């Protein structure tokens, strides 16, 4: 069955990744082949919900000619909304009071008024849930997954991951050189709250001494033993990669004062503190600090923590991401042409598939214990902070 489309829209939401323009280009070129018109919605759904903010209009007509020379560099011409959430739009009401209102019905009406037949949304894992709700409410939609942590379920590869990985490897190589020169152990934290793909794959690429990921609770004694062995052999430096969500086997990350009970804070907000009064949200850099401090104690070798964090999200896309972006964009158009809606384009090698959004949300794609990357790391002698494991 082929859908009768005339005009479709594309938007970007849920945080930036490298080279989003590649997806936009893919959509426009593929739609052009079918004779469909494409408009871009600026800043998530803001271009439709608040067009008055945009002197040139909230919608941007995208032609094949226009995207042909679109920069493949970082960012996206359509802008971005960190949270594309039409269900909770913050606005000032007639009484001059700020409030969050559900404008989802309004959004769907505006989409119809603009004669937009369907919306392709390039979004991160959180915004996929919002897309799912909009679909349930009647919006014809296809999602394209982006994630620098590669943690979107139902796809092997999210757009943006490969570029982040490449840049992380580049940075880690420099950290290693600096660590060698300074004769210290560099402990580098990378993104990965629940999923350790970025830490693990980057760690393998640079042959790190250890990689700590959320999926494998660590015991730093094992890492220290590995580093001590190396130090004894006269190599007085090291490189340890830590995913931000990595945890020790005995529970939570602790760094000096952060773990101390704070009775004043507990008094002011009795339900808002963790056990012992500690903070619950761990700040960026917390994992690296914890590990660096403890490894220094265990190895008697100077360590220093570094955080790559969101730095890896920017910059130009890699060749893999360029191809993937174009393929995802064109794939989303194909999904609409096959009359599919409420689906996400997923790369399940060797195919591009269309999976229901319901299968992609409420899940996190984590590193399984039998992952080939875990096996590779073990075979290369990279410590994963675990005891002896025969691979």
């Amino acid at each position, binding site marked *: 069955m082929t859908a009768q489309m005339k005009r479709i829209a594309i938007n970007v939401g849920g945080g930036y990744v490298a080279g989003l323009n590649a997806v936009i280009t893919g959509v426009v070129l593929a739609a052009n082949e079918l004779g469909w018109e494409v408009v871009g919605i600026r800043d998530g759904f803001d271009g439709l919900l608040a067009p008055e903010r945009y002197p040139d209009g909230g919608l941007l007509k995208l032609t094949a000619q226009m995207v042909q020379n679109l920069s493949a560099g970082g960012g996206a011409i359509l802008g971005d909304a960190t949270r594309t*959430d039409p*269900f909770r739009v*913050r606005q*000032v009401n007639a*009484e*001059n*009071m*700020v*409030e*969050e209102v559900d404008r989802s019905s309004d959004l769907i009406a505006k989409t119809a008024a603009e004669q937009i037949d369907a919306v392709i949304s390039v979004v991160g894992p*959180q*915004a996929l*849930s*919002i897309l*799912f*709700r909009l679909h349930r409410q009647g919006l014809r939609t296809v999602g394209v997954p982006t994630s620098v942590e590669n943690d979107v379920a139902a796809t092997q590869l999210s757009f943006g991951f490969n570029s982040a990985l490449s840049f992380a490897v580049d940075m880690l190589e420099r950290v290693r050189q600096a660590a060698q020169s300074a004769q210290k152990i560099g402990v580098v934290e990378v993104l990965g709250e*629940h*999923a350790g793909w970025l830490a693990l794959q980057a760690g393998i690429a640079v042959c790190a001494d250890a990689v700590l990921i*959320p*999926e494998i609770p660590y015991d730093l004694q094992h890492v220290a033993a590995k580093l001590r062995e190396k130090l004894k052999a006269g190599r007085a430096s090291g490189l340890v990669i830590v995913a931000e*969500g990595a945890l020790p086997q005995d529970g*939570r990350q602790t760094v000096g004062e952060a773990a101390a009970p704070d009775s004043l*804070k507990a008094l*002011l*907000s009795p*339900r*808002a*503190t*963790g*056990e012992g009064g500690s*903070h*619950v*949200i761990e*700040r960026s850099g917390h994992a690296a600090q914890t590990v660096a401090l403890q490894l220094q104690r265990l190895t008697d070798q100077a360590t220093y923590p570094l955080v790559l964090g969101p730095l890896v999200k920017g910059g130009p896309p890699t060749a893999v991401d360029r191809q993937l972006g174009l393929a995802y964009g064109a794939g989303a158009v194909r999904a609409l042409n096959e009359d599919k809606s409420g689906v996400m384009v997923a790369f399940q090698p060797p195919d591009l598939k269309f999976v229901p959004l319901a299968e992609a*949300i*409420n*899940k*996190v794609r*984590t590193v*399984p214990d039998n992952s080939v990357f875990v096996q590779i790391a073990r075979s290369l002698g990279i410590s994963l902070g675990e005891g002896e494991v025969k691979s």
Partner: protein
Amino acid sequence: MNTPAATTTVPKGIVLNIQHFSTHDGPGMRTTVFLKGCTLRCKWCSNPESINPKPELGYNLNKCIGKDQCGFCLKECPESAIFNVDSDTKVRINWDLCTNCGKCVPVCPPQSLYLFGQEMTVDQVLDEVEQDSSFYRESGGGLSLSGGECQLQADFAAALLAGAHQRGINTAIETAFNVPWSHVEKVLPHVDVVLHDHKVTLSERHKKWTGVDNKRILENMKRAYETWPDKTFIARTPLIPGVNDDEEHIRAVLAFIKPYKNVVDYELLPYMRFGESKYGFLGKVYEMQDFNPPSPELLARLRVIIAEAFGRSPGRKSS
């Protein structure tokens, strides 16, 4: 117990929390009742759970005992907004699907899931407040309403304050005055001490950091100072690094309040990160996490300016 009939007919309100033995929300030892709902969105807000006017789900991951031992919430949620990740047995909340219905709360034995805010009647609140009345007499304290913006639930707030007066309890409110004047007219007649925020002087900057400009706020303040010359007003500024921690703002506020003898003091509340963890409990992002509290030196310098304006020697009055 004296229970005035008038207070039983007023609507119920959404109460976030009743905090006993508070020493920061007015004179003496006080009981502070936090009402839910706010009309501003200050980026430094230390009570993010007070912003939404309705009851709202909170989740403390640390307390969750995990799906292997429990997992009742996973079955109870009608929106499929609670889920698991493979690397952890503790549940996670999909905040984009959660509708704050609260059905998961009673089935959570460790109380890691809870609702911020509950509906209460005026008498329910006042009965609890009155339990502390001996402390008020000793210390010159009483009832304080805070928030959110306590004047948002104007009828409920007015009934609480009037009821407290009928029970012989001193009253105070903490307010930002960003409400229609009709709310102020209802609430302020029943208030003894009005603690009110002068957040940012420049209107455009006020809008940037709080969501609205300050035109109506300043109008309300002036009108309140003039309408109730016998009430005690205490001006306050939450001192936020890089936003309003400068002499210019402090001097502008001092100039604004100078003509009014009923504005008896101006206090600085240094920014702290107390609210940070609560953002996580609500699935929200705390935007001020890279800011540090103002230095003691800066605080001391600004307080000297205030002390001089009030004609007292610096350090004598804790402001």
